[in-house]
């Protein structure tokens, strides 16, 4: 089957203050894996939401196999054969796989029938999955399988995948790609959204590159170097963070035998974690989301307390102390979730500066808040970290993700921590802001701080870490020097394929 499946002509969508898509045009062929490449904020999500019927374009048109295509809502898009796997799963932990799939259907068949269909489709596409398992017990890779199977049951002509590999280990990515290749060989088109260039080069036939809402180029990924694609995407030559020091000093953070029960039933139990971080060193901790990252951050920040000697800062027991007592001893943290955890959404940046800065910046006197001091501190952060906002009186919610992240990281860095723990420091942040944040972390290490970076972005970890470890089901892998680690070794440290069966795509193709 050849021919154009979906043709997009001049799609434009503006939101107040920002043009998300500006006259974007491209075609998706039948049976093609088409990459949509761009930084965060380039307009990829808005574009696919228009295809999926979640957002209406202001102007421009789409044609589907030659006929006009303007889905008013997702139901209509699904009826035409568009299916989408979202970046953030919409699954209920407490329900089993079949129940979750049924929830997304217009007219769910009986559970027995549905379970049988799930089994059949999952085996046909090499995605083994037991319909009766509770979703809360599944790994991230397996949850993604639930979402994919939910889509495949609709027998889609176009499958949209939004950043599907961000939650997978390299081995799991391999399995996913085999499935996608099989789908493609059966004539299903795939619109693959990512900013990871190497995987686009392996998987995709064609790529459309978006920057600031505009289509800035198209290429055949296999024939284009990753660097060229990156420069098209960023519109500039990429600046690689530079490090100035290699030597490391005394042990600043010493975690030994840290075990912790999670506070919610689907959290991860931390199991006997040991590691040390030296002054001037960055320890990178990888791992697929949900393997204990949040819990480890909470145990280090003081939100969860343990017995005293499980966590030591400069030799002093702090495991039993709360967040402010730990801040007083020099260990600061920046959690992953910006809105609601690292910052209070409806409070101003001044109030958010006070949120963690009260202790080390001396912003209270006898309990009374020094608001002018807090304002000055917030303004310092905004200036030093180039936070784009009309003023420090703005609510945290009104900032873009990247700007708020710069504020959150800047708030901790400017307090001169001796130990800094950050979780996903550049999640959802555009490349320029991400580079600035990484540079700030490197500079802080150069000044003699010990830094723990927890991240799911392996490229980031390889770029800035001195040593690398991975969390897998609440356990810590061996910690090894980052230089010279191969992607296979890293994948195994992250838990390999997490016991997921390897796709066996040659059999049972008759689905």
């Amino acid at each position, binding site marked *: 089957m050849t021919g154009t499946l979906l043709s997009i002509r001049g799609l434009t969508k503006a939101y107040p203050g920002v043009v998300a898509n500006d006259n974007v045009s491209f075609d998706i062929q039948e049976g093609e894996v088409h990459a949509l490449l761009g930084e965060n904020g380039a307009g990829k999500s808005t574009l696919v939401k228009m295809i999926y019927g979640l957002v209406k374009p202001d102007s421009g048109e789409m044609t589907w196999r030659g006929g006009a295509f303007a889905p*008013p*809502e997702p*139901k*209509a898009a699904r*009826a035409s054969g568009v299916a989408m796997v979202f970046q953030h799963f919409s699954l209920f932990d407490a329900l089993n796989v079949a129940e979750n799939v049924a929830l997304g259907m217009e007219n769910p068949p009986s559970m027995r029938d549905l379970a049988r269909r799930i089994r059949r489709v999952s085996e046909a596409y090499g995605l083994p999955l037991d319909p009766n398992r509770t979703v809360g017990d599944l790994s991230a890779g397996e949850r993604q399988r639930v979402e994919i199977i939910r889509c495949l049951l609709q027998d889609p002509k176009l499958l949209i995948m939004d950043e599907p590999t961000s939650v997978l280990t390299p081995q799991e990515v391999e399995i996913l790609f085999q499935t996608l290749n099989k789908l493609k060989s059966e004539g299903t088109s795939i619109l693959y959204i990512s900013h990871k260039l190497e995987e686009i080069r392996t998987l995709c036939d064609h790529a459309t590159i978006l920057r600031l809402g505009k289509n800035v180029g198209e290429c055949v990924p296999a024939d284009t170097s990753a660097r060229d694609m990156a420069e098209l995407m960023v519109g500039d030559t990429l600046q690689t963070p530079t490090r100035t020091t290699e030597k490391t000093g005394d042990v600043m953070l010493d975690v030994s035998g840290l075990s912790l029960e999670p506070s919610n039933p689907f959290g991860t139990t931390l199991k006997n974690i040991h590691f040390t971080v030296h002054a001037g060193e960055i320890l990178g901790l990888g791992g697929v989301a949900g393997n204990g990252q949040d819990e480890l951050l909470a145990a280090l*920040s*003081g*939100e969860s307390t343990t017995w005293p000697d499980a966590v030591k800062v400069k030799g002093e027991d702090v495991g039993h102390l*709360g*967040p*402010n*007592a730990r*801040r007083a001893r020099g260990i600061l*943290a920046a*959690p992953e*979730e910006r809105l*609601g*955890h*690292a*910052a*209070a*959404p*409806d*409070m101003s940046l001044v*109030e958010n500066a*006070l*949120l*963690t800065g*009260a*202790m080390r910046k001396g912003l*209270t006197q006898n*309990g*009374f*808040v020094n*608001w002018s001091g807090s304002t000055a501190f917030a303004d310092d952060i905004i200036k030093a970290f180039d936070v784009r906002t009309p003023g420090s009186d703005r*609510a945290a*919610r*009104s900032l873009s993700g990247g700007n708020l992240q710069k504020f959150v990281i800047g708030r901790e860095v400017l307090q001169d921590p001796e130990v800094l723990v950050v979780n996903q420091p550049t999640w959802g942040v555009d490349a320029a802001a991400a580079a600035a944040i990484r540079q700030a972390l490197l500079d802080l290490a150069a000044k003699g701080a010990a830094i723990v970076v927890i991240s799911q972005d392996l490229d980031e970890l390889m770029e800035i870490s001195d040593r690398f470890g991975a969390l897998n089901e609440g356990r810590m892998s061996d910690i090894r020097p980052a230089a010279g680690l191969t992607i296979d070794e890293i994948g195994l440290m992250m838990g390999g394929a997490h016991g997921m069966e390897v796709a066996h795509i040659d059999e049972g193709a008759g689905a």
Partner: protein
Amino acid sequence: MIKLEKRPQPSRALALATPLIAVFITMIAGGLLFWALGKNPFEAIRTIFWDPLFHEQFASYSRPQLLVKAGPLILIAIGLSLGFRAGIWNIGAEGQYIMGAICGAGVGLAFYPSESFLIFPMMVVAGALGGWAWAMIPALLKVKFGTNEILVSLMLVYVAEQLLASMSLGLLRNPEGHGFPGSRNLKDYAAAHNGELIAGTGMHWGIVAAFIAVIFAYVLLNRHILGFNIRLTGEAPRAARFAGVNPTRLILFCLGTAGALAGLAGLFEVSGPAGQISIDFNVGYGFTAIIVAFLGRLHPVGILLAGLLMALTYIGGELAQLMLSLPSAAIQVFQGMLLFFLLALDLLTNYRIRIAVKGAA
């Protein structure tokens, strides 16, 4: 299909103006209601909002009532608002109010007929402690066993009411009262009497306490780290944990303060306007204060104004029943309208309505 969409930066001017607009719309809708009942709407509205303050005949009686009624409402609402800001829902202020009255009056009556000047201050302390202790029951149960403070504090209201009945029939009954239920009247006991401070204004120590509470709450919320932590906990509980707020201490503080203030309100009421412990001593100030707290949008100054407004509609409502023979149900509907319009306008300040056309599937 109608959808609500959160406004990114709600207008501040509109947020400040909504209470006034709500009062205005209530006047219109209420006027229509009174008109439908066959009354002159303008006269009814005037009787409710204007006459209590300025009528040449009734104002001299009803004007002091304004402070007398607003005082306990404000005092209780201030305490409640601290907890509400932090997401701690004390619904049982009525019970804490009763316990404050019983404990305070009990201490006073225990020393009868001593004329020591220490008696009234001791009653004040006992009143605050009584309300505080009653609020500590839901607080400690929540902290220790994770019980729901809404249910526990509410149920304790009914326990307190039974205790009140038992006290006015038993332990605190006036020995010279010819067997009638109810305690000695504190108005006849100078050392324990909370009389008018300035004759003809209704001003008594309870009103003073309410004003002090407003100032205290304002400073706490705007200048003190504890107030910041209260607001932070209400807006983003996880961020509060991260900031180092101890939830246990915050629960104890918020419920304790609310209880102590409600207890004080009860004490000032029993030793002043009410005069005695009796079976029907409580008239629902503790519940109405919840409305006052939200009407004043949990802001101390707002609560001050809302308390006065609420008191005005009560007094004006009574006056309208008396003078225009409006049914009391109509007055309650009128008061309900006020809350309804305020909440509706509140929603529209923070959200905008989107009417999505349902496309053909």
